[in-house]
């Protein structure tokens, strides 16, 4: 932010926050606003990013077991065809560790149900074989290998910075993005500050987060000192605010989740599920799993060891999470993807490992209504007989095309956003369909009414009835015409079928019965006349 913008923001915010009790001077302080007010974020879609850091071996994840060349290139590290898990009678073969012993039949079952897409040949032109530069290229959304160009903003960081226009003086009441980690990665960094929060343990966060915000105001200068001071200030303030919001959602949500999550990576997904079920309005969750850099000891014995273990973690986490999402009724709001800075070399390296490669494969998961579950690849690809000079598989799809799918279909981005985030336009792969949600998706409309109330008018006692078509998290409330809530009828996840709720209202008058599912609201009038 340049000085002029900062000063401008400052003057806006000063007026708005004078009421804060700890004010010492009229200098700028931070205030919050509702997440629903963020432009295009009214919708309740949620995006999950799972990073496989170190460079996942794509060839040993989705295995070209039909191709003899695979066995030639990998004398020490191939999976015999009979060990792979084939989808029907196709040439799509999963690593057995993505399937066997994994929750609900793992990724093969998700694929069969249309909840999983596989994008083969994801990567970029002029591949960079450095973990760190390539990771920066993936996370920044800028394909620039020139080491003198510093990539300091993530593509999501840039996108979110466009959304949070008043940052840091005005921040949403719930974090827009959460990284399940101790520090925040480039993905969520922007030049105006951190666009997400780092979270590992909601209880501890809450316990430590109260009364830690600085008492002094933000600084208004633009020196290095001022900038770093304000950065710390903002983190401190966010810690205090978000530790409460996160804890509140977590306490509610952890009682609701249905799946008994496995240890390791899946636990982080269990935490995400709790937060979603508990009503946190966070749009983006980011999880990273390391140790994919398998130069040596990639696997041992009977297809066990490092890489197989990691794949099992990935498959369990995704499968358990999506199962939970379905049971809790929020599955339609979810779309997730795996990312990895590169794949491995097509041939193995003789140390029972593989060296850095280029293009790889990517999973996209979600609800079958919105994920176009399929195996995306060009015919004849991956072509193991047509490697690049370094012995790597050539890419087919620019990695940013999937990002555009997510930004446009899931985060409400328009063309200007895409241009601003990536500096150019990319065509989406088409792996996601936008959600066109309405109450009708969830509720049986009988005589055009989602809510039935009888008797209506009533003398005080009445029955409210709804018929749900699918699992959902609902809010059912009665308001008076002044907008004050009179009764909380129900709040939480609910199963399909007919549900009725009894109510009693003391005073005569006209009331509104309001049903909320996600961001959709439906209301019916109720008259009390004694």
């Amino acid at each position: 932010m340049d000085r002029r913008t900062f000063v401008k923001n400052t003057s806006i915010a000063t007026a708005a926050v004078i009421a804060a009790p700890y004010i010492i001077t009229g200098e700028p302080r931070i205030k919050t606003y509702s997440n629903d007010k963020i432009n295009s974020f009214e919708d309740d879609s949620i995006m999950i990013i799972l990073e496989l850091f170190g460079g996942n071996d794509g060839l040993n994840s989705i295995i070209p077991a039909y191709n003899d060349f695979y066995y030639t290139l990998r004398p020490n590290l191939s999976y015999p065809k009979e060990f792979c898990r084939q989808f029907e009678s196709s040439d799509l073969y999963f690593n057995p560790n993505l399937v066997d012993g994994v929750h609900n039949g793992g990724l093969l079952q998700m694929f069969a149900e249309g909840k999983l897409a596989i994008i083969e040949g994801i990567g970029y032109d002029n591949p960079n074989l450095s973990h760190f530069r390539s990771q920066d290229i993936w996370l920044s959304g800028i394909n620039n290998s020139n080491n003198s160009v510093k990539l300091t903003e993530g593509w999501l960081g840039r996108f979110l910075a466009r959304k949070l226009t008043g940052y840091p003086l005005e921040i949403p009441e719930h974090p827009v993005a959460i990284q399940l980690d101790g520090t925040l990665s480039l993905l969520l960094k922007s030049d105006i500050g951190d666009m997400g929060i780092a979270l590992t343990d909601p209880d501890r966060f809450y316990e430590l987060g109260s009364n830690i915000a600085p008492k002094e105001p933000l600084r208004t200068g633009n020196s290095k000192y001022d900038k770093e001071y304000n950065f710390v200030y903002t983190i401190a303030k966010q810690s205090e605010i978000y530790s409460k919001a996160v804890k509140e959602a977590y306490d509610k949500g952890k009682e609701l989740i249905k799946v008994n999550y496995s240890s390791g990576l899946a636990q982080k997904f269990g935490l995400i599920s709790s937060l979603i079920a508990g009503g946190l309005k966070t749009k983006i969750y980011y999880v990273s799993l390391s140790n994919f850099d398998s130069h040596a000891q990639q696997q041992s014995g009977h297809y066990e060891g490092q890489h197989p273990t990691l794949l099992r973690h990935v498959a369990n986490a995704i499968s358990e999470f999506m199962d939970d999402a379905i049971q809790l009724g929020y599955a339609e709001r979810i779309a997730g993807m795996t990312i990895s800075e590169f794949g491995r070399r097509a041939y193995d390296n003789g140390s029972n490992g593989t060296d850095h490669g280029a293009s790889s494969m990517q999973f996209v998961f979600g609800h079958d209504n919105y994920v176009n579950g399929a195996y995306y690849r060009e015919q004849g690809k991956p072509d193991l007989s047509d490697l690049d000079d370094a012995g790597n598989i050539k890419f087919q799809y620019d990695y940013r095309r999937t990002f555009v799918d997510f930004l446009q279909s899931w985060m409400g981005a328009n063309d200007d956003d895409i241009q601003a985030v990536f500096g150019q336009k990319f065509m989406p792969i088409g792996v996601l369909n936008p959600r066109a949600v309405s109450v009708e998706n969830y509720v049986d409309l009988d005589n055009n009414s989602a809510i039935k109330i009888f008797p209506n008018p009533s003398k005080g006692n009445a029955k409210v009835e709804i018929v749900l078509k699918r699992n959902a998290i609902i809010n059912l409330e009665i308001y008076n015409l002044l907008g004050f809530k009179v009764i909380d009828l129900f709040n939480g996840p609910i199963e399909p079928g007919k549900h009725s709720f009894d109510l009693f209202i003391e005073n005569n008058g006209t009331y509104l019965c309001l049903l909320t599912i996600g961001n959709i609201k439906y209301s019916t009038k109720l008259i009390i006349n004694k």
Partner: protein
Amino acid sequence: MKRRDFISQLALIDDTILNDLSPYTEPLNLRQAYHLLRRLSFAPTYELANQLVGQTVSQIFNDMFETTPTLPSAPNKNWVATPNEDPLKAGNPALRFEIEADIKKNYAEFIDWWIALMKDETKLPLREKLVLFWSTVWTIEFTYDTEALIPPGLCYKNNQVLREYSLGNYRDFAEAVTLDGAMLLYQSLFYSNRKIANENYMRELMELFMMGTGDIITGNPNYYESDVQEGSKALTGWRNGAYLHEPAPKGYFNTYFSPNDHIIEAKSFLNNIIPSRTEDQNTEDQVRNEEVRGIIDIILKERKMSVARFISDKMYKYFVYSEPKSASGEVINALAQIFADSNLNLRTLFYSLIASQHFFSTDNIGIQFKTPPEYIIGLEIMLGVKYAKSRQAIFDLEQELYDPPNVGSWKGYRTWISTKTYPLRIKYANEILITATNQTLLTLVKKFNNYQNLDNCNLNLIEYFLPDITKIDNERINRYKDILANNISSGQWGESIDNNDSKAADGIRNLIKEIILSPDFQLC
């Protein structure tokens, strides 16, 4: 003393950023001595800062950093000389876990040994901050993949290598770490043999430890994939006696050459040919000289300025300002030229940086994020206390020493402060403060000149615990003074301190508590 007078006494040489590296030749004042110690050690003590006051950097440099570092004695533990069995070859899981538990315990002991050295740095000479810096450059991950652990005996040896070469010649440094046992294991050279050259280390040597994928200023590519592949062949054949019952011809934890595992064909690296060798020439000394040092020498011959810029930039980021785009090309180029002209003498580079006007420019004061060891150990040093859980605290703040998230090290800069680590920083600082008795706090204050004057006492405490008092407005200074006074009148303050009044001690404690909550307490 009035605040204005206090500030002017502390005022620095200039208020502008100097992009040149002209030496700062004036004697240091207290503020400059604090700044120097915050950057070159973990935190200042009042005594040590005053020891430096009145002298120029050139006068004190040799006292601060020995020309030949005295290495600390090894921890008095078995694991320093005797390895464990290789847990991966244990045969059954129960035995494997038993061995691994032992290794983890030893690793904690190694880290505690190192942390104790850091805590002891309250007098000259200094060294451990440089060791910490180099451990973020030449990274070693104790838990280096899902399956294996680096033996703590090797971590210890690596740590001593970093200390020995911390201000040495970079060519010798690179050679020493390349053949260091911890690095051989960590970066897979251990697995290279005559048939297969593992590329892992060769790539990181160029990318992370010497020069970057491309020149950091010009952007010109420094090497191609074929250089990684060919260079790897030159580095084949090295082993280390890292495990009990495994070959250790030179003794445990020492690196040795295994001729049958070295690729003897010619290698073409950065447009230079390392000629093929006969089996007769395939000896430890020859291969070490012509291929290990050979590779490093070719890099230095072909890419000397790239190396010089890369290392200068790392040092600048660590000791001046860590913002990724912080240093101008002008500063880095000037530093790099000095470094290159000295034939990559780190002592020359380091001195040129910290003795420069640029280093002391007001613009560069108080803008670094305290790293977890600086934050935890620094507070212990400033208070004069020892905290029993420093290792756990530092790890919890996301710097697991000898176990970075990956070979690319900790990201540093703003990543040290997150919504996870910030609340923990406050918690740990308060825990450390609790370990200070009233007597400790009163003793600390009594070191200040004219401590009996409440204003002066207040300003001294602020100056001591926060990095830049000139940035603090009067309102805050007065608020702090009220907290410190704790309802003792100005007239009574001196007497209260001299009488060791607990009310005065509470005032000091409350002020430090308040300072801990201010954003600039995270900066140095």
